[in-house]
């Protein structure tokens, strides 16, 4: 036992999860609330400082990034000093991932956790070396939503941030988080007595994901990254073909990383006749990231 261990017991740090403990919620790791979130796109980097008291600072967006390491090198140390506790930050990955709809994946108990450590046992033949996975099973059917991220890219990101004086406490996929948030909001009734339907659209800093759920069944999923920047038109154009494929009475749920003025109206123009619900809230993604 060292003096540092004793100090950590006395300042109660030992009773909190370590800052990079993936099994703990963010708010338990950083009870002070001060942290820094990055949104990483193909050629963009957004910065979202989380302040004390659950508030968020003014976000910044850096466009036309050629080299992430070079971009972070200029501002990383200062941001680590200004907005973080010991440089800890979280990265929302908005590019170079795949969200897909799979079926007949292993449903052994704890498979959603096992897929992180031993993906082959859950994915079987769908497993690819050098990839990291997350999975969410549909409890009523044999379909699952599978998130795939390239491990090599993750390592490059980790090195770039580490070299800039920042320590990565979490890397997550914003679209996947928003999709899970929308699904947990829509599907709240246990069992299959009251099946839910809906067309879910997620928009997360240029990434778009659309899922069709009909009577608890996940029928179709489409995910694209780096679709839009400021103008939502490319994203809406991507989801517009679903208008013809979904049933007339199917409600549409749209959720974005933050509240976008006129989003619901824009979606309503495409999905005429459908009930459109905007689940977005100001800083929703970052609020979810700090609460879970």
């Amino acid at each position: 036992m060292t003096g540092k261990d004793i100090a950590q017991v006395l300042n109660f740090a030992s009773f909190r999860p370590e800052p990079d403990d993936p099994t703990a919620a963010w708010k338990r790791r950083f009870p002070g609330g001060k942290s820094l979130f990055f949104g990483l796109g193909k050629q963009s980097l957004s910065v979202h400082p989380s302040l004390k008291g659950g508030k968020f600072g003014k976000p910044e967006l850096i466009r036309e990034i050629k080299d992430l390491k070079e971009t972070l090198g200029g501002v990383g140390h200062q941001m680590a000093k200004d907005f973080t506790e010991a440089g800890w930050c979280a990265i929302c990955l908005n590019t170079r991932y795949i969200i897909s709809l799979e079926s007949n994946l292993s449903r052994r108990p704890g498979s959603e956790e096992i897929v992180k450590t031993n993906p082959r046992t859950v994915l079987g033949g769908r497993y690819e070396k050098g990839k990291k996975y997350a999975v969410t099973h549909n409890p009523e059917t044999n379909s699952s939503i599978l998130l795939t991220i390239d491990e090599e890219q993750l390592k490059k990101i980790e090195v770039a941030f580490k070299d800039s004086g920042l320590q990565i406490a979490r890397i997550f996929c914003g679209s996947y988080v928003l999709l899970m948030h929308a699904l947990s909001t829509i599907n709240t009734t246990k069992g299959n007595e009251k099946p839910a339907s809906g067309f879910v659209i997620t928009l997360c800093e240029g990434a778009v994901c659309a899922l069709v759920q009909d009577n608890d069944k996940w029928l179709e999923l489409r995910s694209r990254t780096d679709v839009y920047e400021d103008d939502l038109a490319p994203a809406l154009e991507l989801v517009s073909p679903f208008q013809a494929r979904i049933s007339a009475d199917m409600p549409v749920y749209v959720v974005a990383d933050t509240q976008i003025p006129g989003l619901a109206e824009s979606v309503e123009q495409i999905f005429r006749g459908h009930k459109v619900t905007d689940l977005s809230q100001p800083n929703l993604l970052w609020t979810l990231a700090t609460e879970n």
Partner: protein
Amino acid sequence: MQIQRRIIDDFKTDRKDILPPLPTVLRLIPVLFYCSIVLVAVLASLFWLQLQVARERLVQHERAVADADAQLQRIKDEKGRLEGLILRANNVEKWIAGSQPIQPLAVAIARSIQKGSTLVELKITRKDGSAGQLQLDMRLATSDQRQLDRTINAIAAEGYRFISPQQSVSNGVIEYKSTLIWQNARPETNEET
């Protein structure tokens, strides 16, 4: 169906040495530590206050002792002074008790002088340090040889005893010297007791 929220999936490369947090119940250890510090601080403050009070009382006590000592010394000095006065008073009393009035002796001597005789000179001196002893120097002009005997008898009748009497005659004047001791004088030892 129900899809429950869970902790956000994390894709960073995990450290191998991540430790779980300590059990919540062990928070009692630092809590007790801080409580003990507060308790120690409170007790130390109380003890410090008590120490200040005790020091103040000690100073007051020492001052009282010093006052008492000074008073005792004053009383001792007063006692010594009074004892000195008592000693002097005793000595005066002894001296007074030891001395005898000379007037009756002088009267007896004067009355013993008969017609035809003259007391030329009479000197009665009390000796220093011995109140009971008188030095008698007397000169008688007389032709009567019995005059001196009558005077000596008169002195003896007053209770005095003669020690070392000396008598000389010159030109009809008898010069008589003697030390007189009063016979009835109380002994000094009895006086002291």
